[in-house]
């Protein structure tokens, strides 16, 4: 449910070129990026460090100026608007709480700038503090809060000004694992209940998968893929995306023909995969992408690739078995392990996969 206040965000062919202070050479941080975020949607920018995701966030908040292209919030072109005039609010990685103000002064800062009467500020600050579960901490200085509490203050401070777009710059990276999980749920709940448009930057795929309406996967300043978490997991465009959003194994194959599926051959076995890259045609060398849960282990010779079990990790609802093969170490996830055969470490095995869960990708892996 989109809030009437929340707006769409459009990036129109945005390029950002930095000058390297040491060498004086131009470095392209973002090389021509276009996308749209719908009102009320939470979109995550996911990618390894240096892929340009933070630069995109900082351009949307106004702290960086794009070298070319246009940025729109709603229908307004904000490309040249300074950060203080933009209707965005950012939650910083290091929170950026004002150390000389207490919690309620921090949260009320944006309202004071907007000349809201003090009485209304007090009332609204209290309401937002309750919302993030810090009603009792109003008078504390930020230095006397825990990391998670500081994060909540930063969140409340951004939300209270009712921005059109909420920006989150790796907000959970300074928290420990348990808190991170809690905050993830909390952020998603607040964002949904307020119906606010949000852009979230992270390099943590679990965070991206669990929070987002859609994910934008970036690499080297360019967008690799935009899609829902399940699209990106099941139907990645290339080996980079498939590897970045989850564990994966690639099996070299030859494309035999394409009809209602992609028919491939691996070592004499033929399979039909329901998804494949558009660029593939009959006769191409390609890769079959299989996730750990689509793989299974059998007696040697039965599958498509032979190997040796190197480790079994028992996780209760599943067992993760590592198999060393000529293709590298492959992770196999065996669900309901109590009713299945678990091969011991050192045993020779062979791998096979469920073709209906795979995708055939162009072989763009670096060759040794």
């Amino acid at each position, binding site marked *: 449910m989109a809030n009437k206040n929340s707006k769409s965000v459009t990036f129109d062919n945005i390029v950002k070129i930095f000058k390297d202070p040491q060498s004086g050479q131009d470095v392209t941080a973002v090389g021509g990026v276009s996308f749209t975020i719908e009102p009320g949607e939470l979109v995550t920018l996911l990618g390894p460090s240096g892929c340009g995701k933070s630069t995109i966030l900082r351009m949307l*908040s*106004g*702290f960086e*100026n794009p070298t070319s292209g246009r940025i729109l919030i709603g229908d307004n072109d904000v490309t*040249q*608007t*300074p*950060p*203080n*005039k933009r209707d*965005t*609010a*950012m939650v*910083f*990685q*290091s*929170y*950026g*709480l*004002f*150390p*000389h103000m207490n919690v309620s002064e921090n949260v009320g*800062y*944006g309202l004071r*700038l*907007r000349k809201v009467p003090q009485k209304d500020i007090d009332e609204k600050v209290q309401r937002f503090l309750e919302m993030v579960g810090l009603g009792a901490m109003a008078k504390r*200085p*930020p*230095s006397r809060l825990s990391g998670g509490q500081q994060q909540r203050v*930063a969140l409340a*401070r*951004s939300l209270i*000004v009712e921005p059109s777009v909420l920006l989150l710059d790796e907000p959970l990276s300074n928290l420990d694992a348990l808190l991170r999980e809690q905050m993830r749920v909390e952020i998603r709940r607040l964002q949904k209940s307020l119906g606010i448009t949000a852009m979230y930057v992270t390099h943590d795929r679990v965070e991206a998968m669990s929070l987002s309406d859609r994910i934008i996967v970036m690499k080297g300043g360019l967008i690799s893929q935009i899609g829902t978490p399940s699209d990106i997991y099941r139907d990645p465009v290339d080996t980079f995306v498939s590897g970045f959003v989850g564990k994966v194994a690639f099996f070299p194959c030859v494309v035999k023909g394409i009809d209602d599926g992609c028919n491939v051959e691996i070592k004499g076995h033929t399979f039909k995969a329901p998804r494949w890259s558009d660029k593939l045609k009959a006769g191409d060398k390609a890769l079959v992408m299989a996730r750990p849960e689509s793989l299974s282990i059998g007696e040697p010779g039965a599958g498509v690739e032979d190997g040796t079990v190197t480790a079994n990790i028992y996780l209760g609802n599943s067992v993760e078995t590592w198999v060393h093969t000529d293709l590298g170490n492959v992770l196999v996830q065996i669900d309901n392990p109590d009713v299945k055969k678990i091969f011991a470490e050192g045993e020779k095995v062979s791998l096979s996969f469920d073709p209906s869960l795979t995708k055939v990708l162009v072989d763009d892996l670096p060759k040794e």
Partner: protein
Amino acid sequence: MNKRVINFLLTILFVVLVGTWIYTSVRDEFLKQTRASQRRTVETVAAGYPEPEDVDEWLKRLAEDANDYRIALVPEIPMPGEKLSSSPKGDPELAKLTEDSATDPEFSKGFDNAAYEEIYRSARNWTVGAKEEQALFFAPAVSLKTHDIEGALVFAFNTDGEQGFMRMLNTLFFGAFVLFAVVIWQLMMSRDPIVGFALAGLFLMTLTFVAYPLFEALRLSFMENGKFSLSVWRTILNSEGYMSALWGSLKLGCWTATFSTLVGFLFAFVVSRTNAPCKKLISTMGVLPVISPPFSLTLSIILLFGNNGLITRWLRVVGLDFSIYGLPGLVLVQTMGMFPIAFLTLSGVLQAIDSTFEEASLNLSAGRFQTFAKITLPLAVPGLLSAWLLVFTTSLADFANPLLLAGDLRVLSLESYIEVTGMNRLGHGAALSILLLLPTLTAFLAQRFWVAKRSYVTVTGKPSGRITELTTPGVRRILTGIIFAIIIFLIMLYGTIFAGCFVKNWGIDYTFSLENITEAITRSTDALFDTVTLAAIATPIAGIVAMIAALLIVRRKFHGKKFLEMLLMTPFALPGTLLGISYILAFNHAPIILVGTAAIIIINYVIRELPVGIEGGIASLRQIDPSIEEAATDLGADQATVFRTIVLPLVRPAFLSSLSYTFVRSMTAVSAVIFLISARWYHITVLIYNFSENLRFGLASVLSTVLIVIVFGAFGIMRLLVRENANLMKNVT
């Protein structure tokens, strides 16, 4: 983008049009006025044309009385194009010009007008004798009796005033236009114009008040009678006197630096490496002299060891005769005043050297002395060098102490002062202070870029707080003994000044009296008021500008940042005398005339004290996470609001210490301000100097005491305010 450029150009065009219109109107009106007044003069003078027999007498009287014009009489008006039939009378140079140029069309026109009883102003300016650009007027010489035209009067008016006005007008309009263009550019092109304005302001300020005066000083040292010449430098470098002054400065600097480093190291070592008693007292006394006002230590040394000093007299009884004036006395005073610099540097260094090293050494069964010689001392060597160079620089630039105590010793800072105020040879003064800059700058740069880089000190961020005792009790007793002797001597010096207030006539009549106090107060009220006013105005300006500059340097990327930083920091390394001399050189003529105003003193304070404030601001801003400021911007605060509500509160300690530092330094300034004071704006330190020179030591003591109280008070207040802040600031990042 193109649309904005066109808008900008259109606005500029509009401004230029309106500006040109105003400019020409002002200029024309001014010229009209001056010409009208010249014409009136011409009319009045011509109307007084006397009888033929009195003409010579009349011309002579006019030549004596008139100061803005010269006059010549052409006895017979020639026909156009013909030469004069007889030589003109009156001002010889003008007469010669008239005779030579009689056939010039302009002169013909003038004579023609005179023949018709009209006054004519030549269309162009003429060179009369040595004077260029003279405006010529032609008027008829009419006989009072016959009303006949007996000849023509030629007037030559000086146009210096006119031209000066035009130059000023041009500068003014050009300046206004540039300012306007910058402002409009910023407003139209920049996303945050405030930052642009601040940057433009800083560049303008440093160029005008740092680069320009220094350039002027340098330029003047290469000028002779308005032309380029090396004669000033040749004179100085060939003169034995000046060279001995350079040598004197260097000698003084070396001795003072060596003794100060020794004393400073002693203090620092005892505080940070032994379990000596009263460490707090030792630390306090090790810092105190650095903020004592100029002249105060010199004054008490003179009171005690001067020719009529208290101790001198006793020593004379014993048969010892000596003079405190000269090198030894100066080294003593400077060491007392400057060892705190070494102490502060070295205690920082020693505290940062992890005492684990020494423990390790002791643990490996080295003796205490061996540990000191093999571990502590080598680790402290860069610090020692650093301290030595810092004191050396300070000693060289010192002006107040030599002023009273130099005796026969010649030092450069003093020499340049004498050249400027005594001999009125500004070029020599400028050259001498530039000469002084060479060793100062060398030492400063060596300290900054060579020694500081070599430092072994690594900040671990976890000072152990433990002290490794490095002395045996015996050695410790000796060291503390020396320290306490120095401390007692210092207290005695301060005590002497205090006692000096209550003694009738020091050296002659030691009876108790309050006369000095009442006299000093009545005679110094104005100067004290001036001093406090000027310091109070300069303080907030310097503080705010320093924090803004620090913020821009730390947080912003812009072109010319290194250059701006260098300009801002330069005054720190400049001897005060050089800054003072260059200011009177640069600001006593167009386009900026400030000599004699309060502004020149205030600007001088601000420029001189900025570097320390900026360094403090930079250091504390580097500790603050930039996302704090970004968060405020993001929530809707413009740059000015971020500065006011976030930056300033966060750098409060640095801001406060910058404020108190500027205030104290402005209250106790001598070396630069002595050149800049005027009858209207006086400085109390100069008054102290004058009283001391006139042997009114009682008055000088009272004023010194007043200054000491003010200075310590200012620091005390600052300490209180900072402490109040301390609990709040524990967790800035």
